[in-house]
C-alpha cells in the first residue's frame, strides 16, 4: 500500500516535472554600479548533467555560481533551482568556493560535525557521517590538527568533504582545482565522478533523480573528463555551449 | 515691533539680536538645503546629456 502510494507520487513527480532543470536562469543580469557582471544570461542546467564553466577572470563565472547558490540575487531576471527559488532549496544545494569555508581553529572533524549538526537531525542520518565523508576524500577523521595548519590540498579536500556530507543534489564548485597539484586535482575529479553515481535517497526526487554538478575552472583539461557540457563565458555573457559524452 | 527693532543687533551682552540670528539661521539652513538640491538637480541634468 505504502509502496503503491510512493510509486504513484514518483510517477506524478516525473510526469509533472519532466523538464524541470536542476537550475535555470532566465534573462539574468547582475550589475554592480555601472559594471555588469552578468548580461542577459539565459541557460539551464539539466538534472544529472555535469557542466564546466570556462572563462577569464571577471567573465561572470563566480557570479553565476553564487547566484544559483542563492547567495546573491539578480538585478534583473530570475533564477530557479528545482523549479523554485534557491533560498527554498537550501537543503539540496551545496556550494564550495576556492576559499575553504572552514574555521581555521577547529580540526576537520570538528568543522564537519558542526556543519552536519546545523543541517538538523533528519538530514544527518541519510547523508553519512562526517567521518565517512572525510574517509571518502582520503583524510584521517581523527586528525587533531586545526584546519589552519593544513596544506592547501588537504584544506580543499576537507572543504569537499564538507559539501559532500550534506548529500547535495546540486553541487556547485567554484575553482575546485585552483592551488592543487595535478595529483590532488585528479583525485578530486575521480571523487566527483563517483559522487555523480550516488543514488538519491531522500527528498522529492528520491530514487529517480540524478545528481547535478556545476563547476567553474581555468584549467579545462582537469575538468574535461567528467564534464558533459562545457560552457564558455565572456564579459558576462555565455559565448558558447558545447555538449559531449564525458570520458568517465 | 518694527523692522528697525528686528535688525537692531544691539550690544552682545544683551540678547535681543538673538531673534534676528534665529530667523536668519532658519532661512540660511532651509534655503541652503534647497539650493543644494537645486545644484544637484542641475548636475544630474548635465549628466543625462
Amino acid at each position: 500500500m505504502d509502496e503503491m502510494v510512493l510509486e504513484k507520487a514518483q510517477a506524478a513527480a516525473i510526469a509533472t516535472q519532466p523538464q524541470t532543470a536542476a537550475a535555470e536562469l532566465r534573462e539574468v543580469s547582475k550589475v554592480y554600479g555601472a559594471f555588469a557582471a552578468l548580461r542577459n544570461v539565459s541557460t539551464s542546467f539539466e538534472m544529472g548533467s555535469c557542466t564546466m564553466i570556462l572563462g577569464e577572470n571577471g567573465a561572470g563565472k563566480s557570479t553565476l555560481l553564487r547566484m544559483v547558490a542563492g547567495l546573491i540575487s539578480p538585478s534583473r531576471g530570475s533564477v530557479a533551482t528545482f523549479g523554485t527559488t534557491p533560498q527554498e532549496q537550501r537543503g539540496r544545494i551545496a556550494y564550495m568556493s576556492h576559499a575553504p569555508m572552514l574555521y581555521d581553529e577547529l580540526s576537520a572533524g570538528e568543522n564537519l560535525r558542526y556543519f552536519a549538526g546545523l543541517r538538523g537531525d533528519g538530514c544527518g542520518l541519510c547523508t553519512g557521517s562526517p567521518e565517512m565523508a572525510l574517509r571518502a576524500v582520503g583524510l584521517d577523521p581523527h586528525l587533531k590538527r586545526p584546519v589552519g595548519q593544513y596544506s592547501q590540498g588537504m584544506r580543499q579536500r576537507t572543504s569537499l568533504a564538507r559539501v559532500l556530507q550534506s548529500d547535495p543534489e546540486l553541487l556547485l564548485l567554484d575553482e575546485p582545482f585552483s592551488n592543487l597539484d595535478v595529483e590532488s586535482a585528479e583525485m578530486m575529479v575521480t571523487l566527483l565522478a563517483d559522487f555523480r553515481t550516488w543514488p538519491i535517497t531522500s527528498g522529492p526526487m528520491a530514487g529517480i533523480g540524478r545528481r547535478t554538478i556545476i563547476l567553474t575552472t581555468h584549467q579545462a583539461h582537469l575538468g574535461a573528463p567528467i564534464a558533459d557540457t562545457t560552457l564558455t563565458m565572456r564579459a558576462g555573457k555565455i559565448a558558447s555551449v558545447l555538449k559531449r559524452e564525458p570520458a568517465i | 515691533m518694527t523692522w528697525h527693532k528686528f535688525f537692531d543687533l544691539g550690544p552682545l551682552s544683551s540678547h535681543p539680536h538673538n531673534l534676528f540670528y534665529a530667523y536668519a539661521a532658519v532661512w540660511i539652513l532651509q534655503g541652503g538645503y534647497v539650493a543644494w538640491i537645486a545644484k544637484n538637480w542641475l548636475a544630474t541634468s548635465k549628466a543625462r546629456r
Partner: protein
Amino acid sequence: MQLETPSRSVVPRVAAAAWFAVALVVLAIGFRQAIFLVPTEATMGNVQRIFYYHLPHAILGMVFPYVNCAASLAFLYWRRRDPWKALGADALAVASAEVTVIFVTIGLLTGSLWAKPAWGIWWAWDARTTTYLILWMLYVSYLIARKFSGGNDEGHTLAAVISVFAAIDVPISFMAIRWWRTQHPAPVFGGDGSLDASFYPAVWWNIAGWALWGFLVLGLRYSLERRRQRIQEEAALEAIEASLEITQ
C-alpha cells in the same frame, strides 16, 4: 527607454511651483504675524518671537522620522517583490532622513538662541533638549551609515534596517530621558504650555507655512533621488546592453 517626455514632466513642475508659491505666501503671513502683529510677550519681550519659528521646526522634526520609518518598511516589503518601487521607497527614506536632520538642527539651534536670554545658558540638559539631541544623533548616524554601506541594493537594505531600529528607539529614549530628567532640577519652561490666545495666529500660520515648506522640500529631495536612480538604471542598462568588444 524614453524616460521623461516633456508633456509628462510639466504637470509636476507646475504643481511644485504653485506649492512653492503658496508656501512662501503662508510663510510671509506667518512672518508678519510673528514679528509685527502678535503682542509682545510680557516677561521676555521681543526675543520670545523666536518661539514662532522654533516650535514648527521642533514639531515637524518629530513627523519626518515616521515618514522615514514607513518608507523603510515599505522598502523591505518591496525589496524582492518590486525592485523599482522599493527604490522609490528608499528615495523617500533618504529624503525624509535628511529633512529630519535639517529640521531638528534648526530646532536645536533656535532653541539654543532662545535658551540664552530665557534661562541664561546656551544649553540645558533638560528633557526636551536632550531628547532632540538624541533624535538628531540617530538620524545623522543613519545618514553616515548610508554613506558607508555604499549606494547599492545591499546598502539600501542595511539602511532600512537601521531606520527601523532608530524609529523604535525614538519613543523609548524620549520616555527614558523624560523620566530621568523628572528627578533632576530642570529649568522651568514657561510659555508654550500656557499660551495666550492672542499669540495663536503667529503659531498657526508658521506651523502651516513650515509644514508646506517641509513637505515640498521632501518632495524635491525625493525627486532628485529618483532622478539619480533613473540615471543609474540607464547606466546599468547600458552596461548590460554594451556589445562584446571581443571579436568572435
